[in-house]
């Protein structure tokens, strides 16, 4: 079981370690700065951290295995926008050709040493083959005419927040976009096809509600041990796919199917976890009670897990990257908008509070 965790927060990166008496904060980096996402590359032991310096822009830092210091590396950069090009999003508003947020950061395949993927707002997917020294925009996706149908959901611009590199073939990549559906490439990113068929919103005109390009998957995960199986926490509910993310079917959970994060067991595709909240216009736990929902039967039934979680006046929201599962499938962790971090060593049956005083948690990952 993994013994380290990277917690990205509004005011720094916190490293948690598991000792005899449970998880504790072991180290901090970038204190005071806005760390939006971190990645541990198990292939070579490198850590990466994405920062948003507000007016100074988005930056990426790297820390080599065993080192104490971080080094700033290149940030994914958009090409020069052609003069006179009209490039609007689905709202009809101009798309900014400048990295606004690194919203997804993943490693390439196990044999692609040094390959990284970065998803960004305003919707560009970038690939690095040299540990982030340089980045290449996936022009094929960026120049796809359907990109102009994408639109910002809660943010001003569309963004790629989920990247699934297929464990069977690292040239098969799927990305999820808020809002732009799910896109699939089977040739290393040279060509792309929409892959959100079956997802739908529960209101609005049918043509829009069921348009794959309008879909708002909040988070997408792929089961490592059964990679044809996927789960998506969508803006309008929970969806699953059993056919390589080609088609999706809706699943209902109580007390709510609304949420941001989802994790799937690394070996059992039928076991997945969610953190429900009152749907979009409120985004708080139902009745002020924070629970995690778990299915063990592919979404036919869900169990509401609450042991160790606050059941009175709890208004924690777990952002999409702030619910995590470790490689063993036994440990889960989550961090909240109010700076709470909980861990579970029994697949969510019970939870222990690690800290209630961290800054707002954007992302959390076992490392």
């Amino acid at each position, binding site marked *: 079981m993994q013994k380290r965790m990277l917690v990205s927060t509004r005011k720094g990166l916190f490293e948690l370690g598991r000792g005899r008496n449970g998880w504790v904060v072991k180290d901090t980096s970038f204190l005071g700065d*806005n760390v939006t996402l971190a990645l541990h590359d198990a292939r070579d032991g490198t850590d990466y951290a994405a920062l948003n*310096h*507000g*007016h*100074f*822009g988005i*930056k990426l830092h790297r820390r080599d295995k065993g080192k104490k210091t971080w080094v*700033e590396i290149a*940030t994914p*950069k*958009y*090409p*020069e*926008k052609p003069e006179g090009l009209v490039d609007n999003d689905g709202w009809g508003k101009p798309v900014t*050709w*400048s*990295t606004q947020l690194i919203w997804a950061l993943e490693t390439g395949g196990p044999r692609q040493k040094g390959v990284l993927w970065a998803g960004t707002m305003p919707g560009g997917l970038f690939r690095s083959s040299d540990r982030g020294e340089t980045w290449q925009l996936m022009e094929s996706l960026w120049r796809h005419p359907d990109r102009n149908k994408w639109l910002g959901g809660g943010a001003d611009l569309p963004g790629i927040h989920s990247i699934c590199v297929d464990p069977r073939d690292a040239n098969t990549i799927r990305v999820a976009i808020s809002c732009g559906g799910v896109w699939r490439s089977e040739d290393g990113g040279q060509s792309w096809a929409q892959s959100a068929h079956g997802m739908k919103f529960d209101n609005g005109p049918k043509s829009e509600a069921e348009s794959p390009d309008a879909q708002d998957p909040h988070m997408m995960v792929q089961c490592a041990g059964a990679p044809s199986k996927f789960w998506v926490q969508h803006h309008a509910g929970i969806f699953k796919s059993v056919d390589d993310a080609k088609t999706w079917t809706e699943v209902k959970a109580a007390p709510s199917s609304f949420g941001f994060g989802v994790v799937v067991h690394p070996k059992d595709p039928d076991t997945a976890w969610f953190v429900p909240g009152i749907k979009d216009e409120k985004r708080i736990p139902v009745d002020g009670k924070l629970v995690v929902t778990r299915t063990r039967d592919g979404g036919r039934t869900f169990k509401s897990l609450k042991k160790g979680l606050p059941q009175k006046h709890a208004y924690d929201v777990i952002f999409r990257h702030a619910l995590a599962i470790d490689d063993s499938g036994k440990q889960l962790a989550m961090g909240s908008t109010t700076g709470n971090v909980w861990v579970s060593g029994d697949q969510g049956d019970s939870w222990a509070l690690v800290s209630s005083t961290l800054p707002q948690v954007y992302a959390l990952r076992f490392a």
Partner: protein
Amino acid sequence: MAKVHFTSNLRRHVDCPSVEVQALNVAEALAQAFARNERLKTYVLDDQGHLRKHMRILVDGAAIKDLRSFNDAVQPGSEIWVMQALSGG
């Protein structure tokens, strides 16, 4: 020689001491300042080479007007400040 100054807020993130430049306009002055440290440019300009939102450049106390090409004139002895608001919470 004109001089380009950066704020302490920016110096916290990237090496950018004040530098003397020989420049006829702000674009030339910035290019010489950025030549010292290529990372500095990414903190001041966005991907399209435009001044980042909420940043300002002052020449001898007056805000420059050309925010795309930075053609505002610089005199020998001019003091150029790269300033910013701060965001966060």
